């Protein structure tokens, strides 16, 4: 009976139409991203030199490369630390920004303003701020806190990747916050208010009501952040130590080696990065779905 009032495009043709409208985006993703992935996988298996044949030699070679485990561990350490710290901090910021207090709009704006700044620019900013010849070091020296600027703690080019992690937090806390705030907007205050009126404390309310409700969004945003931090090249290049190198930096070094025979190894490393990112994103999303099911 509602059929008469349906718009001309019914549900089924609406699906076709949606597909048609999505086609440009899907083609771009499929051809550029999927094509790049397939080409990379192919090049990791097939050396470009004449007379070579398909093999897993490149994967065997990187497993035997003494630099590879260190680089993999370093990248995992950076991505996990940066993601976890960002997720915790973003949750706190989102909870605070949901309150009403004077200056909230300004603070919300300030928290999100750096979303538009490119990573490379942010990383160079961190370098100017935190290096041993950077602004903070010079201020500390000028204030008489340090005898020489070089006594400033090693926050960039360091093996603990402090500069890299700080950069990622600076950049990703606003991103996760933004996603959490929009999720909280959708959920509304009712559940939390009901819990509080039934006698739940602040922590109990957060732990048993708010957190399960925002967990899917938090997991999804964290998965994106992890995949980015794990696969990014420019930030560890600009702020990281020479050794251990982050995995993408090592892959680049291998890809520009003068010996053409090493090209498949660089592609193999890129494939490892892609596979691990994809696996962790899938795990995070599945966990989020389960959390949502429970809540």
């Amino acid at each position, binding site marked *: 009976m509602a059929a008469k009032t349906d718009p001309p495009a019914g549900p089924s043709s609406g699906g076709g139409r949606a597909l048609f409208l999505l086609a440009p985006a899907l083609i771009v993703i499929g051809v550029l991203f999927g094509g790049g992935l397939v080409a990379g996988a192919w090049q990791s298996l097939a050396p470009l030199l*004449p007379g070579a044949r398909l093999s897993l030699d490149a994967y065997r070679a990187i497993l035997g490369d003494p630099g590879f485990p260190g680089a993999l561990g370093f990248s995992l350490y950076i991505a996990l630390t940066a993601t976890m710290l960002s997720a915790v901090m973003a949750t706190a910021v989102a909870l605070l920004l949901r309150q009403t207090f004077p200056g909230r709009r300004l603070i919300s704006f300030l928290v999100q303003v750096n979303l538009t700044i490119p990573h490379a620019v942010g990383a160079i900013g961190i370098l100017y701020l935190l290096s041993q010849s950077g602004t903070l070091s010079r201020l500390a020296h000028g204030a008489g806190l340090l005898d020489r600027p070089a006594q400033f703690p090693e926050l960039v080019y360091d093996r603990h990747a402090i500069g890299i992690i700080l950069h990622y937090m600076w950049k990703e806390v606003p991103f996760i916050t933004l996603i959490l705030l929009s999720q909280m907007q959708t959920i509304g205050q009712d559940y939390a208010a009901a819990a509080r009126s039934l006698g739940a404390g602040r922590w109990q309310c957060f732990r048993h009501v708010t957190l399960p409700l925002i967990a899917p969004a938090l997991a999804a945003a964290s998965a994106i952040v992890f995949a980015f931090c794990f696969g990014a090249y420019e930030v560890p290049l600009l702020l990281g130590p*020479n050794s251990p190198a982050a995995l993408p930096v090592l892959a680049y070094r291998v890809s520009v080696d003068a010996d053409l025979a090493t090209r498949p190894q660089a592609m193999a490393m890129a494939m490892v990065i892609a596979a691990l990112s994809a696996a962790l994103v899938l795990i995070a999303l599945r966990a989020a779905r389960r959390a949502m099911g429970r809540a």
Partner: protein
Amino acid sequence: MSLVSRLALCAATLAATQGWADTPDGAALIGQDWEKIVEAARGGEVNFFLWGGSDTINRYVTEDLGGILLRDYGITLNRVGVTDTAEAVNLVLGETAAGVTDAGSVDLIWINGENFRTMRQGDLVWCGYTETLPNNALVNWNNPSIANDFGVPVDGCEVPWNRAQFAFAHDSATLAEPPRDMAALIDWIKANPGQFTYAAPPDFNGSVFVRHVFYHAAGGADALLGPFDQATFDAVAPKAWAILNDLEPYLWRKGETYPNTITQLNNLFANGEVALTFNYDASQSGAAVDAGQYPATVRSYGLTDGTIGNTNYTVIPANSPNKAAAMVLQNLTLSGDAQLRKADPAVWGAAPVIELDRLTPDLQSAFAALPAHPSVVQPAELGAAALPELQAEWISAIEKGWAENVGR
């Protein structure tokens, strides 16, 4: 429907505009009348890939060379900056492997040494055309350091562009007397902990610094010249790694890490974190002073036991679709006027690669009258103690050995 037709129209327009100055067929150009080549190139474009880390060089290429190309030949020069020349080589390699043999995206690469060897190894270079360039007459191909690129014969596959020689730099205001030979440098590093470091190979400049240490360990370059020899390498390498590992505790950050790029090292020097820096192009310290990055009291200098020098070139990939335009650009880079402009310290300050006595008297006196930059060591003084480059296999082995034994 309309989308499809619009796409088809786009493709057709693209093909048409790309098509009319296409000259992928190299064989038809070799030995051809130069006027005809210029006509074939007219109105086209040339994609020039080169290391993009120097503002002065970028400006010279875009404004000087690009300006003349557009004005005199109607050719558009697209300068594409890369961090590492191997990126351009990889592009050509990838395209060729994908079957793109006459419509590649790279028409000219600034290149030498191991990247040139890589391109020849992969058969990615267009060869045999250099005699066709009129300004080839200005090049002295009897000079072995021009006819050989890091020990590999050029064989008409590249056109020389510059001479370069490695030089250190110090700030005369804070370090009046820098160490002037390799042994003195090693002692100085130990006496001044934290004041020295070098960019980690495979950075081009860091790699050549490590080669200086290698020469020092070998007691000179002579034993290392010629094709790669595993026995010699095995005899020299442990000594070189011992010297470098010995130095580590006295380096910046106690050698726990090294700058990843020469740009990082130069920034450490500019900020006073280290007292010495270096560059394969001595004129770069002058450019950094003019840019306000280094204080005016910075001076570049050579070593009494010599620094390594090379010739660098431009190369046309075999799959370049704009070979005629690339040839016109190469011919332009060799002209007396372009080499003179490039030699001006205010423009770039790169040493000429052509024989000056083959130029007109006017140009010769213009070269003689070029001002000297106070921060840049005189090419003649630097050239008095010049060391040859090694063949590419040596360089690969040294870079690999450094990563395994020193830079772990």
